[in-house]
């Protein structure tokens, strides 16, 4: 460890010059290194916060890779090495537990925590907690909705059964009848499964994240996934479909509806303006009635190894304050976590579906909270792929075993 720190210091000295990556008290204005997923107008937000800081700090914006796995990999590698060059980290909502448990991010306390929680929606705030403590400040959130063509499906069904019946009807009439879901072997498949299990009244893990729960609701959920993948609703490329493939299938006129994040609306308005007047949204379907929609989003955390944590907390708070969230929402299509922002200027035009999002957020299903989420998610996606091959009792047994191993870091990742 000591040796590691010294070699880092040497490396920093060698690379010094800009000093951007090495932080340290070199005097002058502290530079807060922000690491975030690519976001087109984040620089606008950063500039605004620099102005607001009035010389208390300066934010250096560093962009992580595009894929969530690649982002996480870069962050955890550098945190595991105790890299002092990271200050504010943009985290996917599923990483909070892992980074908190490993001791790589700082707890939010006192005035900071109060400010982060003030006016923040409950579900997104919950994703920033681990073992009752706050480890990040919610920045953006996201929920999936049912997006459908009202010219084909005037009455959107509230259940998966209803969706399959609608598809069968449309197929009988020789119309586009596919329903797009994220069925490829990746995180999106886990998101779909988790939402079904929660809609059936169950959960993947126990609330403390230590035990596998699953059980009868999970078996029902598996039955629905299998039935859907074998029904008229299933696109032949279901087992390859990710979010963007689903969007393209609807825009291309092949599918009648999709379960997806709200970005599809802006994309439809841009790509197929003639189609958008029939492009409507409805609550995420469930098993016996409306379901619990998948919850997404991103939070800001402060690195344990940051050399100037006070400046980092202040910067993170500015980066997610109402005005920053309004910019992110209206310019980059990222739904805010502060409730009041939904009524802010420009939101009605950028977010015609904002009431539906707010409503869905109240019941949205968070993903399991565990430091080993990465492992749980990977083995779940492998086991559920392809959805048409699911055999509910057998698949459930495999899931229980593999997730149980993953929780104890005993499991092997494929």
């Amino acid at each position: 460890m000591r040796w590691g720190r010294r070699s880092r210091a040497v490396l920093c000295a060698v690379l010094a010059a800009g000093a951007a990556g090495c932080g340290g008290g070199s005097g002058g204005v502290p530079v807060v290194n922000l690491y975030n997923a690519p976001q087109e107008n984040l620089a606008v937000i950063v500039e605004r916060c620099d102005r607001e800081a009035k010389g208390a700090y300066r934010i250096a914006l560093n962009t992580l890779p595009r894929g969530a796995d690649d982002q996480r990999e870069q962050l955890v590698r550098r945190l595991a090495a105790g890299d002092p060059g990271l200050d504010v980290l943009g985290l996917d909502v599923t990483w909070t537990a892992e980074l908190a448990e490993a001791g790589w991010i700082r707890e939010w306390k006192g005035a900071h925590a109060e400010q982060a929680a003030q006016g923040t929606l409950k579900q997104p705030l919950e994703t920033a907690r681990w073992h009752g403590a706050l480890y990040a400040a919610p920045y953006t959130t996201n929920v999936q909705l049912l997006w459908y063509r009202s010219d084909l499906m005037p009455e959107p069904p509230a259940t998966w059964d209803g969706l399959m019946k609608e598809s069968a009807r449309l197929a009988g009439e020789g119309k586009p009848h596919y329903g797009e879901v994220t069925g490829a072997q990746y995180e999106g498949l886990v998101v779909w499964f988790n939402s079904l299990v929660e809609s059936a009244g169950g959960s993947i893990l126990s609330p403390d994240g230590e035990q596998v729960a699953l059980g009868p609701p999970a078996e029902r959920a598996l039955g629905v996934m299998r039935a859907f993948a074998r029904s008229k609703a299933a696109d032949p490329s279901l087992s390859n479909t990710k979010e963007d493939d689903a969007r393209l299938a609807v825009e291309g006129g092949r599918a009648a509806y999709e379960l997806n994040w709200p970005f599809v609306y802006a994309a439809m308005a841009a790509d197929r303006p003639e189609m958008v007047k029939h492009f409507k949204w409805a609550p995420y379907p469930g098993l016996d009635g409306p379901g619990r929609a998948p919850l997404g989003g991103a939070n800001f955390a402060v690195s344990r190894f940051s050399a100037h944590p006070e400046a980092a907390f202040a910067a993170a708070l500015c980066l997610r304050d109402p005005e920053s969230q309004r910019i992110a929402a209206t310019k980059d299509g990222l739904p805010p976590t502060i409730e009041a922002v939904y009524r802010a200027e420009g939101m009605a035009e950028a977010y015609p579906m904002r009431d539906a999002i707010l409503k869905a957020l109240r019941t949205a299903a968070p993903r399991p909270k565990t430091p080993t989420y990465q492992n749980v998610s990977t083995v779940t996606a492998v086991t559920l792929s392809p959805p048409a091959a699911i055999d509910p009792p057998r698949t459930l047994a495999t899931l229980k075993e593999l997730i149980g191993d993953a929780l104890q870091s005993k499991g092997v990742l494929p």
Partner: protein
Amino acid sequence: MSEGGIAEGDAREVVSKGRAVLGEGQRAERRLGLWLCAPAALVMLLVAAWPVVYSVLLSFQRYDLRFPGEKAWIGLANYGTVLASPFWWNALGVTLLVTVVSVALELVLGMALALVMYRTLLGRGLVRTVVLIPYGIVTVAAAYGWKYAWTPGTGWLAGLLPEGSAPLTQHWPALGVIILAEVWKTTPFMALLLMAGLALVPEDALRAAAMDGAGPWQRFRLVTLPLMRPAIVAALLFRVLDAFRVFDNIYVLTNGAQDTSSVSVIAYHNLIGGLNLGIGSTMSVLIFGVVALVAFVFVKGLGASAPGEVR
């Protein structure tokens, strides 16, 4: 590759006559030699041996970076976990399949290319340069090229397939694409090694065989191949060890989805993605073991260490 000029005449004599005949001056010289190469040996030990030893030590521990408080020595439990995991055996199977199929294809194609290049009279330099292009391209860059080529929508190759097919998202087609990318990439290397081997075959022997009435195929099979044997074995050793470590192509093309992880990819996923140093190191140690075994078989069984040696 060449065996000439390895040792001076008298040094070889000393070795062959045994140790007893060394004079005082020679012994001092030898001591000095040892001292002179000691720093290099030490550095080698540090950079080559220590990481291996460290991996072995890690493989006996429960060591997950996410649970720093639960670090513990657990003996062989990690080996039990890995060897009981179907994911590991699947990865080993994929690795062996990719190794055997791609090296076999490369040997045949490489031999054909070597023959063409060796006999080319016109534009010899140009032909050799052109053939080497794939080997000169960075593997990761080439892999991205293949990835986009096989992705529906962006790819010229995917466009040739029936509508809606995405070969990289299915097990066997994905494996096929991976093997293809490997073969495309390293056949030139194989051809280059084999061409060096062709130079070992004396023209006289071929002419004599032709005089005796041997056809081209007989000359190739009965004269060229046996004389090239050392070069072929060396080329195979290089390529088998290389192919067994296949990583870049799989990482870019599928990242192990649809059961296409090789042992290197699965070790990477557990070490870097899963942050599980114990399990990941166990896999690294197992990979090291297999590579050592393959090298041993080649060197001892097939005599790859001494190309040109008369057997």
